[in-house]
Each structure stands twice: as C-alpha cells, then as structure tokens.
C-alpha cells in the first residue's frame, strides 16, 4: 500500500478515515519526529485534522473550560482563565519544547501520545479533567486517569478521535503548580515532574491533589502525599512529608536522562517545590508562569 494523506474538512470525514484505518495527524511534533527517530514508522495512511476549526476552540463557562484537541500549547498557556484558574496547566504548556513546538504541538496530541513525561497530563489529572472521544458510532467521556494506560498507550480505540478536554474550574482558595526537573531551560523533557493543586480555607488545606510525571509508567496521583497535606496548615513539616510520600509512590526507570535512584531523590525536591508554589498561589502570592524556571533559581 502506498502512503496517503487526506485532509479532513469536517469531523465526520476524519472519523470515516479513522474507521478505514487512517491515523490522525495534527501538528506532527510527536508523530513525525517519532518516525524520524525510528520509534515508529509514519503510518501509511494519515488523516490531517489541523483544519477542523471546531476542535480549535477554547470554550469557557462559569464552571469549566473546554479545550479543543487542536488548541496549541501556546494558546493554552496564554489563556487568561487558564493562567488564573488552572495555573498548573499554564505552567506545563509554557515549557513544552521550544516556541515552534508550542505553536505547532497540540493538547490533544500531547495527551494521546501518552508519554509518561508529558507536561499536560499531571495538571489535567489533578484538575479532574475529562476527554470526549468520538467515533462514527458515537461519543463517550473518560477521565484522564481512565484514558492514560501506560507508556505510549491510551484506552481509546483506533477509530476514536479526541475532540476536547473539559476541565472543571476549582473552587476559590485553590492554587496550583506544575514543576519539573530540567537540565536546561528550554527544549527539555521532564526528568521528574510534579503537579500540586491545593485548596485553602481559613489557612487549612481542605483539598490536595498531587501527581507525578516521568516517575511512573503513566501519569498518576499519589494519594499518600495528598493525605499528608489535607488537614494541615501547609507547614514545612507537612510539605516535607507529602513530598517524601510522592517519592515513595514513584516507580521510576533508569534511562539515558537519569537513573531511577536519582529520579526518586529528585521527586522529593520537585514535589516540595510544586507544593510550596501551589500553596503560595492559593494564598494569593505571586509566582511567575511558568513556575519551573523561577523555582530552580528562586523558591528553595
């Protein structure tokens, strides 16, 4: 079979192509690069979905933000609502690759490629986001935890297209942060990353969600770390116990970028930085977006 690329003008056309065995391409920043690196050859049959305007929208209501699958990292990180209310997601989108990557790469692609080191997965998981998957047969909604199945694997069927990611807006008093360990400041892949979303009421942590990135086969929450924070006043001792619990829950691998033991050791540091910055934001203190750069040189 010879290679082909069809450009979809409607979602229905894209779904028909997927049902016939085509694979979708949006920005191509993972798919095409992966083929060049020899991870997986470019699928013979491609359907380009980049022109689907209905998948490019950011829809805001009083209760949620719905991000179309084609929303770029750059648009996501520049959205005022995302920066104000879903700050950890803005932190994450603002440090993906380079400006070219952030302009071309999409939120949908980042999720569906399901890298354990993806930046957006931790924040979306902690905010309780859900995705809409659509096929010619109909639509279904899945939580991020139900979508991500392992390294490079999701539970989506091959004829399903990710249409949008719905993110509920957290209650007042919530602050969040995504921080990653990086060897350089741009064009980096997380060596270890952590997301913290905390809600404060009268100085007490009433809710905490903490997730790890590049520390397990799929992005996942660390319940013990969350439990260590909830009910506390966000004191240094509670933060330290939560960060240690995050590291204890990790199951990192050794690869070309870091050893498993180094990743686990750094999980404590990155977890602490993410929690401290999330608490600071919950208290109304200013922490720059993206947080990572500032945290490496600033918050200790």
């Amino acid at each position, binding site marked *: 079979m010879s*290679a*082909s*690329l069809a450009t979809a003008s409607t979602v229905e056309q894209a779904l028909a192509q997927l049902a016939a065995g085509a694979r979708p*391409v949006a920005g*191509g920043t993972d798919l095409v690069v992966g083929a060049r690196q020899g991870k997986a050859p470019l699928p013979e049959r491609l359907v380009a979905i980049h022109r689907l305007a209905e998948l490019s929208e950011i829809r805001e209501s009083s209760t949620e933000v719905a991000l179309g699958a084609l929303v770029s990292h750059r648009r996501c990180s520049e959205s005022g609502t995302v920066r104000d209310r879903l700050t950890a997601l803005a932190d994450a989108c603002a440090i993906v*690759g380079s*400006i*070219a990557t952030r302009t071309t790469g999409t939120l949908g692609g980042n999720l569906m490629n399901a890298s354990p080191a993806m930046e957006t997965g931790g924040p979306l998981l902690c905010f309780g986001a859900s995705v809409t998957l659509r096929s010619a047969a109909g639509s279904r909604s899945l939580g991020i935890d139900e979508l991500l199945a392992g390294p490079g694997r999701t539970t989506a069927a091959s004829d399903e297209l990710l249409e949008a990611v719905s993110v509920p807006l957290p209650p007042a008093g919530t602050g969040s942060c995504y921080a990653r360990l990086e060897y350089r*400041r741009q064009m980096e892949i997380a060596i270890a990353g952590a997301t913290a979303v905390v809600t404060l009421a009268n100085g007490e942590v009433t809710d905490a969600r903490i997730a790890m990135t590049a520390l397990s086969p799929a992005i996942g929450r660390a319940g013990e770390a969350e439990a260590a924070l909830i009910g506390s006043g966000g004191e240094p001792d509670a933060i330290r116990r939560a960060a240690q619990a995050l590291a204890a829950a990790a199951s990192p691998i050794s690869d070309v970028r870091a050893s498993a033991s180094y990743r686990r050791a750094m999980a404590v540091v990155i977890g602490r930085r993410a929690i401290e910055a999330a608490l600071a934001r919950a208290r109304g203190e200013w922490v720059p977006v993206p947080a990572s750069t500032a945290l490496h040189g600033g918050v200790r």
Partner: protein
Amino acid sequence: MKVEAILRINGVAVPVEIEPHWSLLRAVRDAVGLTGAKEGCDDSECGACMMLLDGEPVNSCSYLALQAQDREITTVEGLAAPGELSDLQSSFLEHGAVQCGFCTPGMLISATALLRRTQDPSEEEVRIALAGNLCRCTGYGAIVDAVLATAAGRAADSVP
C-alpha cells in the same frame, strides 16, 4: 505515489509533485529548489530548518508538506527582496553573528517571528525565542546582540 500540490512560498504559489509523507523541508528544498533552510538534525532539535507558517515558526523537517497547503510559507529567502537584506540580516553581519552560517537561516526566521510579536524584547525573551535554534559554533552572544540591536534600531526609527 507522488501527488500534486500548490505551496505558497514567499508570496509565490508554486505547483509541486511530492510524496504524501514528505516533510515541508524536503518539499521546499528538493521540489521547489529553495535551499536556504537547512537540514541539521532532521529531528526538531536544532532549528536549522525553521520556516514561518502563517507568520509563526515551525520546524519544517517535522511538518508534513501537504499540511502547509493554503498557508503562507516564509523561508529565509523571503525575508528581503532579492539582493537586499532585512535590517535583522544587516545586524547579524554587523555583529559578527554569522560564523559557519549553517544555523543562520533558522536563527533569522525565529528572530523575525519574535520581532513581529514583540517590539521591545528583553534579552531573556530573545534567548527563549531562539532556544529551539542551536549554533554549533556557539556564537550565541553575538546573535542575541544582533537581535536586540535590531529591535533598538526599529524603536529609534519610529520616534517621530
């Protein structure tokens, strides 16, 4: 099997015959014959292949050419009229920002996009904008100076 397509490059609509899986870089270099954009890593790491797509920087080595149809493609050849230099290009020469020259087309493209977005970038903003462009001669200092001087020159020119 090759397919027919029309790519709009530097303001000119160019009919091409390309394979569906060809990158924009390969189409522009091999089918159109514009060789300003370079193939460095072929992996979205080095930025030597950078082009503008509707005014925004893209690693053309990792972007499928057929997805660039009906969009405005700008390569380094399109930054100034033939035989002329843009102020940014002149500034690169004045500051010694060109050593071996292989990264230069990509640097110019990324910096052009930055200066369209931001009239008065800080050094930090320049460095972030050029983070996806590697210079193996490591001549970053002169490159950053050249971009900052261009912005300063435009600001001076715009004073009534």
